[in-house]
């Protein structure tokens, strides 16, 4: 079984997130290690596109579900463009690099409430792993 498992009814955003993680691991196989030692659930909501997806880190494998989890450890709510932008934002220690303009833009969105990440204080490891798995920077 692969590093990323996608439920059969997943489409759109879920397929894109799965493809991003798969593509990144294919290009850089050591990134598969980012899936190890981390367990938890993440919901991603693209509000303007009206799509949600649930991700589950299973300590070595990422499962992509078509529906969000009732009580996910992390809950990311923003618009479609920001979700795409988050993948190309420069990272420092797994978080947006505020020394770079794109990194500051993401932080600015968080401060304005355009990007909400519930659980980032209690589950920072889960967030940084997700960021690094999705990052194409």
């Amino acid at each position: 079984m692969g590093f990323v498992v996608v439920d059969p009814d997943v489409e759109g955003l879920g397929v894109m997130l799965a493809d991003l993680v798969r593509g990144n691991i294919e290009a850089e196989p050591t990134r598969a290690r980012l899936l190890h030692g981390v367990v938890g659930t993440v919901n991603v909501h693209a509000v303007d596109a009206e799509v949600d997806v649930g991700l589950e880190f299973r300590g070595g494998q990422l499962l992509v579900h078509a529906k969000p989890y009732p009580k996910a450890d992390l809950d990311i709510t923003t618009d479609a463009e920001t979700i795409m932008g988050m993948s190309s934002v420069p990272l420092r220690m797994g978080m947006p690099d505020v020394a770079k303009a794109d990194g500051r833009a993401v932080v600015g969105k968080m401060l304005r409430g355009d990007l909400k990440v519930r659980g980032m204080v209690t589950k920072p490891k889960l967030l940084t792993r997700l960021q690094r798995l999705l990052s194409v920077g």
Partner: protein
Amino acid sequence: MALFPSEAWLKEYVDKINSSKEYEEAAATWEGDLCYVFEAEPDKGVPADVRAWVDLWHGKCRGYKYDLPAEEGDASKFIIRAPYSRWKQVINKELDPIKGMMQGKLKLKGDLPTIVRYVKAANELVNIAGQVETEFVDEQS
């Protein structure tokens, strides 16, 4: 005014790509061909799938082909497919392509990390499509 879909429309589109400074900058290091698949909608005047291929290289389009065979088009590095009426919405700027992909209305095949790196260039390609003076096949007088 160019009829969509048609070879004349594709030629106009390619001409506009090649005269776009914004696209040239955003795609300065892009290397790879792209095939758009306009899926059949017989009731709207598109009786069979149409494949439009563009060879994109370092901010320019160095070649194009219209209505190429499936096996040739499907060998492209990137393929974006959707029914004709979805493409019409994209060209008319009624459907944002990123949202469309997230909603599963447009389907992308190819290395997604590469597309994400060049998302600005991809947006420019869509903007340029919207600049072509277009008459849609299902609205022909």
